[in-house]
């Protein structure tokens, strides 16, 4: 075998090993540095007591964003934000200066969003499709899998890209959307999500995984490299 032919046979395998090393070297699922929407802002001075004004300024946008992503509706998110904010301000004395406040706020917001959804007569009627069904009977992919032309480490994505991702979240079926938003947007641990939504840990993981696969499928046509 000539040396050039030998090299051409070796190179693809070496390339795959290099890509595999890069992928497996990425940080784990919940690195401490991720953005957590309800997280208390980093204090630059000693923590101030929680006042209605502070709650309004620091937390109202976060309540609004969580509700909007869970409910996929600006109008419903506005109702929930108002309900939650008033509820929180009325009970503020209980949480003055306590670190449990963000966790409690998450729970109040999730409960209010779920209650808002229950009130609605129109439920999702479409069939749930399982993204894992998109494989052939022999277990192979049912089409080409293309690489994406997006740098995930680039933290300031374009506004259009944000809108694209928000639309994909909105398009998720409710049962996957709730878990996906709480886990991957809010950065909450799976166990905490299970408590909030009254789900077992395996159920949380199953829904999160399917939510991610559906998001991947929705984003792929926009991010794939041109063949």
């Amino acid at each position, binding site marked *: 075998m000539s040396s050039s032919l030998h090299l051409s046979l070796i190179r693809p395998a070496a390339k795959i090993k290099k890509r595999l090393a890069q992928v497996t070297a990425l940080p784990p699922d919940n690195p401490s540095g991720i953005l957590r929407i309800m997280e208390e802002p980093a204090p630059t001075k000693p923590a101030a007591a929680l006042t209605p004004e502070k709650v309004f300024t620091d937390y109202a946008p976060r309540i609004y964003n969580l509700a909007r992503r869970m409910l996929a509706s600006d109008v419903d998110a506005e109702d929930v934000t108002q309900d939650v904010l008033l509820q929180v301000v009325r009970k503020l004395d209980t949480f003055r200066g306590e670190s449990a406040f963000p966790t409690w706020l998450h729970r109040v917001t999730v409960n209010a969003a779920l209650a808002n959804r229950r009130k609605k007569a129109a439920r999702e009627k479409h069939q749930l499709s399982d993204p894992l069904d998109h*494989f052939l009977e022999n277990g*192979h992919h049912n089409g080409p899998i293309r690489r994406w032309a997006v740098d995930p480490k680039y933290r300031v994505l374009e506004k259009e890209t*944000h809108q694209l991702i*928000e639309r994909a979240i909105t398009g998720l079926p409710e049962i996957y959307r709730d878990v996906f938003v709480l886990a991957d947007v809010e950065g909450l641990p799976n166990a905490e999500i299970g408590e909030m939504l009254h789900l077992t840990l395996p159920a949380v*993981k199953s829904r*999160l995984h399917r939510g*991610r696969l559906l998001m991947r499928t929705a984003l792929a046509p926009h991010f794939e490299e041109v063949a």
Partner: protein
Amino acid sequence: MTITCRELAELLIDFVAGELPPEHHQRVEHHLECCPPCLTYLETYRMTIQVTRNLPCQPIPPELIEKLRAALKEIKDI
């Protein structure tokens, strides 16, 4: 024992979280070494997680800010 592409896809959530038992982890890595489509699938699965985590907080609509301020004022006045 080898695994199929579909079986690998089912294991991705635990694989990226580093929660797969060693014997399963090894099978996934072995499959990825031989299957470029699955390697790309894994890369794009991870990218999906990462781009979602970079989402910014959208500003509250001005009309809602007004409504909330009015509601807060009512509480303070009680």
